[in-house]
């Protein structure tokens, strides 16, 4: 009898946990996927990132307090940056063996890139602060917190990202 009650309690707790996790996915899934897409510029990679982050969230579900969304944003950004680095390392290897011929060199000054192409060329760290600050409507301090970096680093990254965007789009002289 006791074991039956215990099993019932366990299954109730598990069902509650499942429901909490489903609510977390429904409430934050699209925002996280968007954040991951903006950092990676790759929908498929972003979906992988999103899934990985939610699996981690599942493991830590009992530790996530009121700021679950903040935790998810931070882990998503960091995981997206890591995923970009892994992808770039692979691309670098492919390029080294001559399969790709595109040069990673500087941009032709006559070529004025549109914003989307310029974003493609930014480092994932710079894209992450732009995404948090401009898409997420976060202040610099909140951006730093969401990216898990010091405020000064967030400021300098934002500044550098904007400078690079101006250079790539030919708006630096304006």
């Amino acid at each position, binding site marked *: 009898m006791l074991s039956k009650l215990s099993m019932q309690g366990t299954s109730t707790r*598990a069902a509650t946990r499942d429901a909490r*996790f*489903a609510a977390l*996915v*429904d*409430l*934050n*899934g*699209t*925002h996280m*996927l*968007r954040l991951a*897409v*903006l950092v990676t510029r790759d*929908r498929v990679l*972003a*979906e992988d990132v*999103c*899934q990985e982050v*939610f*699996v*981690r*969230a*599942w*493991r*830590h579900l009992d*530790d*996530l*307090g*009121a*700021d*679950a*969304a*903040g*935790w998810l944003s*931070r*882990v998503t950004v*960091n995981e997206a940056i890591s995923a970009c680095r892994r992808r770039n390392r692979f691309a670098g290897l492919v390029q080294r063996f001559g399969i790709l011929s595109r040069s990673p060199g500087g941009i032709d000054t006559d070529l004025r890139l549109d*914003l*989307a192409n310029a*974003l493609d060329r930014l480092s994932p760290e710079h894209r992450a602060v*732009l*995404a948090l600050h*401009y*898409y*997420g*409507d976060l*202040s610099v301090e*909140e951006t730093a*917190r*969401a990216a*898990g970096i010091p405020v000064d680093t967030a400021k300098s990254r934002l500044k550098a990202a*904007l400078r690079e*965007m*101006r250079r790539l789009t030919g*708006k630096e002289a*304006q």
Partner: protein
Amino acid sequence: MTDEFEREIRTRLHSEAEEVELSSAQRQRIMAAAAVDNPRGKWLRVAAPVFVFGATATLLLLAVVTHVPQVGPRNRSAVGPGETPSALSSSASPAPTGASPAASPSTEPFQCDAASGSIPGVANQVITVRVAHRGSFDRLVFEFGGPGTPSGAVAYSLGTQHSTTFTQDGSGLPVQLGGERGAQLTLRNATDVAPQPERDQKPGYPALVEVRDVGNFEAVNTWAIGLNGTGCYQLHVLTAPTRLVLDWQVP
């Protein structure tokens, strides 16, 4: 010029983001991945390799004992066929890989009373109204902009109410919003511009349920807000570009 360029980036990022939605297939994949990672299955994941390793080691030892008769009794008793190598137990609890949950994003207190103020030197068009869930609060952003030079201060007043019924300016008809309680934001010397911002958004967040334009006449722009929870908020005025930000406390 900086403002304009930053606004272009902001608009670009938002338009790219709005093309992305979590599909039901992706949601199912996430739920399936979590189910595989279920703590109830952790025992199996840990126990299975231990069992396989232990069984293999036992069989090997049996084979050695059976085929090497000169092994003395002292050696046989050191690692008997029924024993499990104790070193394996130390690998049974993998360390968590994720970052620990952060503290609340803002330590400022939420206020529950009415508020008013002005935003000086701002272009007087509300060009975008955005919503976002941020964990302990739901954010509602009114972004100002528009062509021409700033035409004086925009005055704002925010009032809270217990009902979610508002009055549509002009017609005087009642407007019912979702949620348990309401708030009304009035922006004077401001107007919103079609087709943006969206005039009725229903995000259905824990605190912010609905936001709807209920008046836009003679530079008085009124927004009704449907809420759940306490109805308490933090109000911020951010610059570059100028934004009025309302963070609604999540219950």
